[in-house]
């Protein structure tokens, strides 16, 4: 490399989501003066010629930021950009199925009355025929008028019929309850009320406001009411479980009917390590899968049992990867897996009131490292595109190993030092690199990062809207309590002088950088917050710990002194704190990186590329 005048060098880091760049003046003896930096979304799949456009944009920003011009650029360095791609698949492993017609309570918003009532189900139309002394629960179609219903109930009760409660199709429970002469439990909004079996023993329970039912959520409570023997109680026990936490419920005792808490045959997954293969049942849960994985690490590939759900899941990941990379599906090797237990809302099969149950599911994130991409093709395209900008041919080089560059960039964080671990919290994978005091760098990529958090939030809240989920992930929540004030997550009120927009009224909102956005759906703030934090914990705290374990000298976290968090998810408002809390007992200094003392967790690899080049110049200059 020719020595001589200072050169204008541009470093570019093509990531899965984001392309980052910096420009710097590197002088003869290896001194670096950083001038500017830039950032743009990655165009196309990482490691393909499509990336060139993103490079043009990010590098252009960096030059503008540094007050430089394209024609003055002497050298462009890009990272190696081996694509590390991740795929996700999720399967529920339990499913609540109502067979025949046993009904479960579905917690309507406004049940009526309170207490517990037991009797035989009878259609409203037949109530007049019931004899005095009989205990009945009245089943009422949605079209009936509440006044008529109340009148009929009162008349029957006056005749001596033991009216013990009612099951309504419409949203009329309070209206009916208010017109009775005694307090009865009434459940309403039972969509398929016409399918409630008649002539069967049944029980209705409604708790006081703010309380939950106590009898129908207890197996022995149901057994007491229905006089069940031990065998029958075993059968009814999933019913009780599914009613836990409800304010109201109905249980109808049908001879053949029952509710099964069916476990879906999810199948097993075979984890192939270097020397052995371990097979684990997916429905044993995420912990079991992760323990098995730890035993055979490093993972060489994973296979799902064919003909089962997990077989389909893994095949799906493999196909998606193959499509992205152009490799044959059987060439795609899964190098890491993250399994996460989750609960997803699903409509109960066979339910009568659109009941929704939170079913167990396992989410698998798989990471695939493709064969080293045709990086020269990328470089050639970058050269072509940048030549347009510079109006001359530019020197474009593929820089050093990404992990080494990341460490180099991270070490520009004030206060950091070696032995250091860099944790790059990206979108698809969490990457860790360890440098010991000799500068030896070892790195590991584990599956699952920011995008998985978004997916979990989306699935657990049943949003079916990635954009909303992404906002819930990124921003604190508040409840709009009036047009002039919100209450923040931490309970403090904030007032405004201008009224808030009407569509925000009474909603839970995310406090985005562009103002408040209402969160769709009926989730309350506490649920949203809990879901958000748990998703972050299960992905990032778990991944940080297992990445550190794999990379720490001797697997001992105490050997690490500094952890620097980098990448888009290190910008999160709580993930860095959660990771710092989790590693604190090991005596590790952990925090969000501040590359070059000013860029926060961004630009580490780009800056590291320039620094590495400068070191090279220094060495070659000295030689």
């Amino acid at each position, binding site marked *: 490399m020719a020595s001589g005048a200072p050169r204008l060098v541009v470093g570019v880091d093509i990531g899965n989501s984001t392309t980052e760049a910096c420009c710097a003046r590197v002088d003869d003896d290896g001194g670096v003066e950083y001038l500017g930096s830039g950032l743009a979304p990655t165009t196309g799949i990482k490691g393909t010629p499509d990336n060139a456009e993103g490079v043009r944009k990010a590098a252009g920003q960096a030059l503008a930021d540094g007050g430089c011009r394209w024609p003055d650029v002497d050298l462009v360095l890009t990272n190696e950009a081996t694509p590390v791609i991740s795929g996700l698949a999720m399967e529920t492993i339990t499913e609540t199925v109502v067979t025949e017609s046993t009904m479960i309570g579905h917690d309507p918003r*406004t049940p009526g009355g309170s207490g517990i009532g037991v009797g035989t189900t009878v259609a409203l139309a037949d109530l007049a025929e019931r004899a005095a002394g009989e205990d009945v629960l009245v089943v009422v179609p949605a079209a009936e008028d509440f006044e008529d219903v109340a009148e009929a109930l009162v008349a029957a009760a006056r005749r001596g019929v033991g009216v013990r409660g009612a099951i309504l199709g419409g*949203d009329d*429970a309070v209206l009916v309850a208010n017109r009775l002469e005694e307090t009865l439990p009434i459940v309403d909004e039972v969509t398929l009320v016409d399918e409630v079996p008649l002539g069967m023993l049944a029980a209705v329970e409604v708790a006081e406001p703010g309380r939950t039912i106590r009898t129908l959520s207890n197996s022995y409570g149901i057994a007491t009411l229905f006089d069940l023997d031990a065998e029958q109680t075993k059968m009814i026990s999933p019913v009780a479980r599914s009613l836990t936490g409800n304010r109201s419920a109905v249980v109808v005792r049908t001879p053949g009917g029952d509710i099964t808490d069916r476990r879906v045959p999810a199948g097993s997954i075979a984890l192939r390590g270097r020397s052995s293969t371990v097979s684990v049942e997916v429905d044993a849960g995420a912990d079991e899968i992760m323990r098995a994985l730890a035993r055979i690490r490093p993972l060489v590939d994973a296979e799902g049992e064919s003909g089962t759900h997990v077989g389909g899941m893994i095949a799906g990941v493999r196909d998606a990867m193959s499509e992205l990379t152009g490799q044959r599906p059987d060439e795609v090797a899964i190098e890491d897996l993250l399994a996460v237990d989750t609960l997803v809302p699903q409509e109960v099969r066979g339910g009568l009131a659109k009941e929704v149950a939170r079913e167990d599911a396992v989410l698998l994130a798989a990471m695939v490292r493709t064969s080293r991409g045709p990086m020269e093709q990328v470089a050639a395209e970058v050269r072509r595109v940048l030549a347009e900008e510079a109006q001359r041919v530019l020197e474009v080089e593929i820089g050093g190993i990404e992990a080494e560059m990341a460490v180099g960039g991270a070490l520009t964080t004030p206060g950091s030092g070696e032995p250091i671990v860099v944790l790059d919290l990206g979108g698809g994978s969490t990457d860790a690199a360890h440098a010991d005091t000799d500068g030896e760098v070892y790195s590991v990529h584990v599956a699952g990062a920011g995008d998985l958090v978004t997916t979990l939030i989306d699935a657990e809240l049943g949003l079916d809207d990635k954009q909303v989920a992404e906002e819930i992930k990124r921003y604190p929540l508040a409840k709009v309590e*009036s047009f002039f004030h919100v209450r923040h997550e931490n309970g403090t009120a904030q007032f405004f002088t201008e*009224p808030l927009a*009407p569509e925000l009224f009474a909603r839970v909102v995310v406090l985005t950088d562009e103002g408040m956005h209402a969160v769709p759906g009926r989730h309350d703030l506490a649920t949203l917050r809990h879901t958000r934090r748990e998703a972050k914990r299960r992905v990032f705290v778990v991944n940080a710990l297992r990445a550190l374990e794999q990379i720490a000298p001797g697997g001992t976290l105490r050997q690490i002194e500094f952890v620097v968090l980098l990448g888009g998810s290190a910008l999160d408002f709580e993930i860095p704190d959660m990771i710092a809390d989790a590693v604190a007992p090991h005596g590790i200094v952990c925090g969000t990186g501040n590359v070059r003392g000013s860029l926060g967790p961004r630009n580490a690899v780009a800056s590291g590329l320039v620094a590495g080049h400068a070191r090279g110049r220094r060495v070659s200059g000295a030689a």
Partner: protein
Amino acid sequence: MTSTETGRPERTAEITEKGPAGRGEREDEVVLGISPAFCSFFTKTISNIPLAEVLREVMAGVEEQGVSLRIVRVKDSSDLAKIAHRAARLSGSGIGVGILSRGTSMIHQKDLAKLSNLELFPQAPLLTPETFRAIGSNAAQYAKGDSPAPVPVQNDFMARPRYQAKAALLHLKETEMIEPDGGIVELDVSIRRAGS
């Protein structure tokens, strides 16, 4: 589908004035404001739903949510936004509902600008008794601090031309009935089955 077509029994509203309406003290109340000719000159909406039925459904929607309701008549205006906003400002919860004789309705809140609203139901011909129940229910839920999903409104571009002339006539009549010095009076409303 109008209520008369569903074969509901005919009902009448017995309305008595209780004097000038004051601001409510209870936080769990919704105030319903009706227009000058509502249940006086007019007895049915533009699509022939009896106004007694409209009142009954709004009342039921509010009651089911465990919230209380006051009904007032805004005598000096036939402007829906004004009626709804005034109802909201009289309401202890700050939530009000306004309904014109032809059926057009609005949910309002006291701190909103008059010309804004929480929910608007502009196409009277498309409103059914179920919509009025839902309007009462949503208004009550706002009053409780809940976040109800807005009541879905159908949109039928054919309905507009078909009813436009009738709507204009009804509005004219409503406006004629204005008593400029009538203010806002609180009402006692009881809905009875006809003949009972």
